[in-house]
């Protein structure tokens, strides 16, 4: 970690930050059991990627990365919409958003 930073490329700070954000998101998905919170964690992961892309884009002077971020935002919105819809229908049927109860399908 130090090595990355000491080389003097400030881009690496962004890299570290988005990696941390991404990891937090992964941890959240791993350890939280509430469907909504997991959804939010996924959003966090996506946004960490956005941050990373923007920073890369800015430092390399290439705008492609920023365009990509727009795509990600659009897709994330769609994804959240679908995810929430599914969650709603689960909540209707099971009156819970705990993903642990989703274990009818196994073995």
């Amino acid at each position: 970690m130090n090595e990355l930073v000491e080389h003097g490329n400030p881009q690496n700070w962004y890299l570290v930050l988005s990696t941390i954000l991404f990891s937090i998101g992964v941890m959240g998905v791993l350890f939280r059991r509430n469907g909504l919170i997991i959804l939010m964690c996924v959003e966090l992961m996506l946004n960490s990627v956005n941050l990373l892309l923007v920073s890369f884009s800015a430092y390399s002077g290439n705008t492609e990365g920023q365009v990509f971020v727009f795509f990600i935002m659009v897709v994330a919105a769609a994804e959240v919409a679908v995810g929430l819809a599914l969650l709603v229908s689960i909540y209707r049927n099971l009156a819970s958003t705990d993903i642990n109860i989703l274990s009818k399908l196994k073995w």
Partner: protein
Amino acid sequence: MDNFINLTQLITPASLIPLFPLLGFFITALFGKQLKHFSGWFASAMILLSFGLALHLFLNLPANQSLNFNLFNWIKWGNINLAFGFLIDPLSLVMLLVVTGIGFLIHLYSIGYMHHDEGFSRFFSYLNLFIFFMLLLVMGNSYLIMFIGWEGVGLCSYLLIGFWFKNDSYNDAAKKAFIMNRVGDLGFLIGMFFMLFYLGGLDFETVNANAINYPAGSSLLVAITLLLFVGAMGKSAQIPLYTWLPDAMAGPTPVSALIHAATMVTAGIYMIARSNLIFALAPFTMEVVMWVGVITSIFAAIIGIKQTDIKKVLAYSTVSQLGLMFAALGIGAFESGMFHVVTHAFFKALLFLGAGSVIHAMGGEQDMRYMGGLGKYIRITWLTFLIGTLAISGIFPFAGFFSKDEILAASFGANKTVWILLSISSMMTVFYMFRLFFLTFSKSFRGTEEQKHHLHESPWTMTLPLIVLAIFSVGAGFLGMPAVMSSTHYFSQYLAPVFEGSKSLITEHHHADHGTELMLIGIALSAAAISIGLAWSFYVSKNQIPEDEPQGLSKWVANKFYIDELYNTIIVKPIMVISDILFVLVDKLVVDLIVMAAAWIVGFTGRTLRLVQTGNTGFYIFAMVIGMMVLMFIQLVY
């Protein structure tokens, strides 16, 4: 081979000899129902035709010449050609005449004997088939053709012993005969492989031509001859493969006469006589042959003393006589062995047929304890049987005297121990044969009234063969008179070309001088006389009848030294147990289990592994992250 015009003319009749019995077999087998009792006559006629042709060959084949021809290539591969061909020479001619001649008489006899049997046609078809194979055996010009006949007669023996297939003990006897023969056949087969591999062929000519390139006593020839002898042991019922022959008496009596006395069982002697050259080149084997013969001869004679079944006595007597012949071969007296084959064929066939006639008269009874005094009722049988008994006992001037004397004389020259043992065996032979004779024909009848009422002489088809055989049992011996009596030994002279090769290899020691010879004759005759006297005193004077349950040593003898039981315990039972063990423990449990276990392990892994799929999303994601980390690890660190 010399190819005289007249020799080639003989090919056709020679080829036809085995074809007639084969034709007879097919006709009687296929049309038995339609032919009814005519099938017996037809079958006999076929054999008579063969006999005629054999006689034709005998008369027209020039002396010192043989007829060797191939009919077609049977198996031909690589540079090996196993042709199907015949060899007609003095040796095979002698056997041809014996087989067809006695065969015909026994066919004739069977017409009467089997008259009431429901399997009449079947019987004759088997008999004809037997003659066919026997002819192949003696006519073949190679070991392979001989082997065809060899196995074929084994088959017919099987079929005929088990002729009355409803009785399971008969079937057992038949099976036993076939299987024991097969044991010998394996030896024969492997012996043939040796010959084919090292001696370049299987026909007698090639084998002999190549064998003389090997030094006498070379291990190859010893191996070959020993293996061939194993075959002979099986077929000719020598120790240790003899137990099938007494059991083989389960078959109809003509079968016992033809197959198990006169012809088939002598095939072993014929085979060794045929291979005299290679046997002569293997002195060790000759020793083995001799000792096996001697021991068998004595051993069987001992057992014969205590038997009560008329046919069993004759059977053991056959084993004993065959042992005698092997002893002769082992000494190197091939002609004497063959001579005894011929004379034995006559008188043993006679004895069996006589016994058959007795059994016929007794309505199927075979136990001598329930006979006695039959001489009064069945005169022809009685007389012919007496001739046979005298012949086998070696009483001058009956046939057995000459041949047996020749063997004893030869053994005296070769090995005194052997001579003593063989003499003892002969004495015992005389004893049990007269025991048989007295128990059966002398004194008073011991059977039931019903049987007594039924006693009658057999029809002419049965007595005629008896008479003819009796004539030969008297006369055949004069073909080979000892040097004391005649300057020409017709039989040896006739066969001389066959044994030419081996003569020089065998040390000439059996031509004792006239004085010794006379002495030997005297000893033999007086021993015989003593035995007859003993038998007379036991079974006529004292009127002893063998007890039902003998005690002590005689119990062992009467039970044939428990050899059958021994074989049963050390061979048959273990194989059965092993069979069960292999099936249940090895096949089902081990071999199959490995296969099934492999399948089960796969299935078990599947059943266990599916539990990993818990249905819990958290776990799934966790596993994915772990997998991801492993990938990272491989990429960045590993």
